[in-house]
């Protein structure tokens, strides 16, 4: 599966709340960041967790968020960041 997004592209994490312990932290849902790098595709843990090992691998990204975009009351400087690994099906192109 080819990656839809490339480095430096702005992406927004879906604001979805399906049940279960998923790899997309709640604190970044609905937030916009920048693709830091495209990682090797891997098994979708949301399928693997239910015994589905033979599916296509899904692209995985490291997305960099500014702290001030994650936490509006962030006390530190505006250049502080958080990098999070996010699977492609959680990402959409950011609206400019």
């Amino acid at each position, binding site marked *: 599966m080819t990656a839809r997004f490339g480095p430096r592209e702005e992406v927004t994490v879906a604001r979805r709340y399906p049940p279960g*312990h998923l*790899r*997309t*932290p709640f*604190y970044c849902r609905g937030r916009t960041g920048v693709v830091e790098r495209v*990682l*090797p595709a*891997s098994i979708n*843990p949301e399928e693997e967790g239910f015994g589905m090992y033979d599916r296509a691998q899904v692209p*995985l990204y*490291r997305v960099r968020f500014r*702290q001030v975009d*994650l*936490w509006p009351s962030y*006390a*530190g*400087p505006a*250049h*502080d*960041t*958080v*990098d*999070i*690994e*996010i*699977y492609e099906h959680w990402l959409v192109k950011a609206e400019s």
Partner: protein
Amino acid sequence: MTAHDHPHAAVGEGDELPGYFEILEIALRELLIEKGLVSADALRRQIEILDSRSPALGSRVVARAWVDAAFKARLLADGSAACEELGVTMYDGTKLIVLENTPEVHNLVVCTLCSCYPRPVLGLPPDWYKSRAYRSRAVRWPRSVLAEFGTNLPDDVEVRVHDSTAAMRYLVLPMRPEGTDDLDEDALAGLVTRDAMIGVTRVATPG
């Protein structure tokens, strides 16, 4: 009842009665072995490998990067492959990303979801790394957390937190301290601590 048909207590961690999750783990382990999906020896071997890993491996990797610029470039490009050059295998199928601290950027590693940790190069994580307090606060108030570890960073340094949420594992390459030009690779490795490779502190100048 085990396969050889007489009941006995499982060999556990200690003499105390097992708790709920220990009983669950023992039951799952015994079922996997009885069904032939995992052998008892393969399981034992994996625990042996886990226990053989310690921060000394990560320290060797860091010291090599400090003295060998070409190795450092390979380490930053592909952490797993470079570690394997030094005989440190990624036995758990994870890939290692090495994060370089510079005068401009300080990296800090956390796993907010559970306790993902670069075990192949650092061994088992410290208890605080797995605590809810560290996991939640490191992404929300990283500078306060760093200060509690004695690391006070000026505002012109970018604090870059890495939330280890999926397939990658992260190792911080600390800055080589001042005044260490005379030290050889082994002596340098002796300066590098576990906490510096997680990113909660820096490597101090010896003496």
